[in-house]
């Protein structure tokens, strides 16, 4: 047992020593990995989705080495500012509130309308229970309306809540809900949509202006040559630019 402890300590120490001399910047990309088509974990156990492809291309254009990291949505901003990774690329809409804490690049999706997923078309939104993921623009919107809000830590749980009747409807990005509604005959999207949020951007530390400028330029170049639009069409992320 003693040996085991020693080995771990030695491992941890050598981890910090072995690489102490290394140079060259690796950018760690933080994502949630639970929000298809933006980002999810594929069958191979790797991060996949629209933002994976986008992020890899951006890193290539900005000539950065990038590494993907997953983190709970709840603590995704605190872990960015304390430096556990360098960017948030997780379908995060640009809002004034978040902008006070972190910085955003320019948006890489058009503002995606938020849609309601429900079991029947005649749900009473004001009188019913609405599910949304904690800390999202949708949760803030529902709370603002003064409707009954039921918050969950993951997108998956919000869908489950509608399925089992715990919530009457849920509010989330339309591109996330569309494939779910198409595959499940019981669920449907309501005709009503909400235009909230200013498009999705990459989040960075406020002190990281240089990195932000690099990614901003890379996003701009992808917008200019149409590759971004191609990705948006491929993954069905709302309107193109």
């Amino acid at each position, binding site marked *: 047992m003693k040996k085991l402890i020693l080995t771990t300590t030695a491992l941890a120490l050598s981890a910090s020593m072995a*690489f102490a001399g290394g140079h060259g910047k690796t950018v760690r990309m933080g994502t949630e990995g639970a929000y298809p088509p933006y980002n999810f974990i594929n069958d191979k156990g790797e991060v996949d989705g629209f933002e994976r492809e986008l992020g890899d291309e951006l890193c290539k254009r900005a000539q950065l080495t990038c590494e993907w990291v997953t983190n709970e949505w709840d603590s995704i901003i605190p872990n960015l500012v304390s430096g556990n990774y360098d960017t948030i690329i997780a379908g995060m809409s640009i809002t004034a509130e978040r902008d006070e804490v972190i910085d955003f690049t320019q948006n890489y999706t058009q503002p995606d309308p938020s849609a309601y997923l429900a079991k029947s078309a005649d749900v009473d939104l004001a009188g019913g229970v609405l599910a949304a993921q904690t800390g999202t623009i949708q949760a803030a919107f529902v709370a603002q309306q003064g409707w009954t809000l039921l918050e969950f830590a993951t997108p998956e749980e919000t869908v489950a809540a509608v399925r089992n009747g715990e919530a009457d409807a849920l509010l989330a990005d339309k591109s996330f809900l569309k494939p779910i509604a198409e595959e499940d005959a019981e669920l449907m999207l309501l005709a009503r949509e909400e235009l909230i949020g200013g498009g999705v951007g990459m989040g960075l530390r406020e002190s990281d202006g240089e990195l932000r400028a690099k990614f901003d330029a890379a996003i701009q170049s992808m917008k200019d040559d149409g590759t971004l639009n191609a990705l948006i069409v491929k993954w069905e992320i709302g309107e193109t630019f």
Partner: protein
Amino acid sequence: MACYLSTPKHMAFYWSFGTVLVLLAITAPLALVFGFGGATAARAQLAPVRWFGKAYIAVVRGVPDIAFFLFFVIALDQGFEYLRHQVFCPDWDQPIRQGNDFLVCPAAKLPLSTSPQVWHEIYGFFLAVLTFAIVFGAFAANVLFGAMRAVPQPQLETAAAYGMTPRQTFWRILVPQMWVYALPGLGNLWMVLIKATPLLFLLGVEDIVYWARELGGTKTARFTDYPHGDWRMWYFGALLLFYLAFTKLSEMVFDRVMLRLTRGQATLAGEAQRKAAA
């Protein structure tokens, strides 16, 4: 089905069982060491050491686990990085705290942002072990403190009468006899520790509960070769069986250890053993 159960993602799920077992294997003895240190400190003659021991037990036991895990780990991580920052970058002129951001020089990052992901995971795991050991060490300290006081006083007085020094009395008389009183409490702690391992995910370590939730979640055909509905019930069911089997096994082991420890002890169970043999 066999194909589905052997996707690389499922392999990660199976590996995470190993992660949990390794965590337990390292944390339990480490927590015991912390506990032993805490209990010894709390009994110390020297007042500051005693205060430290008592404060450790009282404070850590009083703070909710989840608050401890969320706050303490980030603080610990930042503390390490701050120290390294002082050592490696003495001539860094920018403030470390800029608004919300915590910025140390790149060489002080732990692990370095250039190191491969696996080191980040090992480091996270190491933080998890340390945090678990500190939390459970406080509980163990309380148990051991009580157990040390439960050893009959005449035993210690006899030792003194035989001319043993306090140190000899402690190691030769007190410590060997206290385990029998400590074991039920420690057994309880072990059970709680087993069940507390899902807190790992709060620390960024991908444990069995994370993978069960991820694998069990609804998968639409566009994003996977194996679309399925909400299967979390089955995955969590498997975890339930795992935890039940594991705790049952632990109970059996504890029963055997207890049997061994009570032999020749001045307790009811020890007396019963003596009579049965005679």
